[in-house]
């Protein structure tokens, strides 16, 4: 979203893009997923195993968050929120 208000054609509806809350959620949870998977693979210690009852919790929780994050970004990408140039009329084509 680098275009400035002036350069944007005023009559064309466009995707909400990064400002779609689903992308923000997907990116944040997905990022947590990546960090946790790395932690699970690289820093799985006996002490952690004792805490979790011998489950690699970081790895599994990380994978789940990663899948969740990807699904949210995909959903936002496949069914985008369209922002109408006329700001009083939000798009009717909302996903649901």
């Amino acid at each position, binding site marked *: *979203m680098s275009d*400035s*208000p002036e350069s*944007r054609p005023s009559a064309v509806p466009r995707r*909400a*893009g*990064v*400002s*779609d*809350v689903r992308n*923000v*959620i997907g990116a*944040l*949870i997905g*990022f*947590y997923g990546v*960090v*946790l998977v790395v*932690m*699970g693979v690289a*820093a799985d*210690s006996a*002490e*952690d195993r004792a*805490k*979790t*009852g011998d*489950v690699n*919790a*970081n790895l599994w*929780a*990380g994978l789940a*968050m990663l899948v*969740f994050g990807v699904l949210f970004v995909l959903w936002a990408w496949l069914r985008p*929120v*369209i*922002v*109408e140039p006329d*700001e009083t009329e*939000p*798009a*009717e084509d*909302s*996903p*649901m």
Partner: protein
Amino acid sequence: MEDPLRIGASFIDYVLVAVYFAVVLLIGLAARRRISDSLDFFLAGRSLPAWITGLAFISANLGAVEIIGMSANGAQYGMPTMHYYWIGAVPAMLFLGVVMMPFYYGSKVRSVPEFMLRRFGTGAHLVNALSFALAQVLIAGINLFLLASVVNSLLGWPLWVALVLAAAIVLSYITLGGLSAAIYNEVLQFFVIVAALLPLTLIGLHRVGGVNGLIDKVTNAPGGGAEQLNSWPGNELAGFGSSFLSVLGIVFGLGFVLSFGYWTTNFVEVQRAMATNSMSAARSTPIIGSFPKMFIPFVVVIPGMIAGVLVAETASLKAGGDGSGTTYNDAILLLIRDVLPNGLLGVALAGLLAAFMAGMAANVSAFNTVFSFDLWQRYVKKDRPDDYYLKVGRWATVGATVLAIGTAFIASGYSNLMTYLQTLFGFFNAPLFATFILGMFWKRMTATAGWVGLVSGTAAAVTVWGLNEGGVYNLPGQGAAFVAAGAAFVVDVVVSVLVSKATAPKPVAELAGLVYSETPKEQRTDPAASRLPWFRSPVKLAGISLVLVVALNVVFR
């Protein structure tokens, strides 16, 4: 001596917390600058489906108090805590969506103080605004105390230093525009909290040997017992020896007065629904929110119960020991310390800090709105330019934060915060709900009755509480709060009716849009409603939700 609450957070945990706050700050800054993209931001927000506003609706409430308070309750009382959801919140949310929302939306009354002013005039408005401001400062104190306990567990600083630090963090969070993007942050926060609590619950269950292991352990634990696995009759929670009185207290006190009062008159909640673009969407907001709401206890109350048998300190507390200086409020933090490895720990801390901060920020900004516009502008200095009131609002924010440090010490004196919170709701929400409902459905109710009812309702609740504290009778659980709320409701209604009989009512012509019978039907209905598919029809969704919540009540009875 090593502080038992000390959580061993590592560098990576701090990174995960920092990333969350960076995202929140970016959202806040974008909202504040209102650049082209941020304008889209809110437009996109408005056209988002109702399930997102539904999530924001419950997320606004899924704060510190709920997570800490409900898990503390779970650790102490077990399954009866479920009543807060299945007898309390969910039916109240459905009532709000089905009965109240058409009226709110149609009559264009945007807040409870506004309704009070138009329906009853200045007397009720002043009482309502003052008690609301006081309640917000007291509740902000709870949130601040909880925030400080997390800082305390992380860094091991003394409580008062942690309090001041937490207050400073919240102040900067509000100043940086974190609230402008409130709904966005709330939805984001919901997912982070679930991402923290779900693994916590699953790993905790795994540690105690699954569901059967938990049942075994709670049944046999000292201070536990089989009654903690059944939600009814909940004698321990209500503090009544008699099962009949206990059920009555839970259904009428907790279910009807406290929960209906909270969910239908809390304008922070109602405004979430008012932000939608049609009446059907507004009605759907609390109804859709009720679906996740009924499953939240599984990741909040259950971890509390797990902590009660797994965490050494909490188990000793349950057995009647001293818990090494911990209280039930620490249950979930202690469980996080015991079962989450570094990494997941960071996610959990991010979720908790986010929830506590957002909760306190909401209290403080609600206080500042009511203080500067409903109190200062109306009763102290009228007719000043706008920026004068903005300045007043800014000082009110600082003042509220400083006051909250004081009220946080009151909160720190309660070993189970839910008891304290329900007591406050009994003082403030229960009489408000009575006056509100009566004023809405009974056109004969007069202006004098409005404020006299509120004052006497609150006085009744305070009296019941005082008698219990003074030892005239003794209800150990949350029963005192339920009884106080019930008393406030009944006294408010009786006094309002008596006073109304003795004073002159408002002319009927002034009541359009304020009293149900005087509001034209077109104002209360959505012309497009009949064209919606079943999954968008509020009433049908509410029916499904009701069936589910009854089923949950039966399954876990």
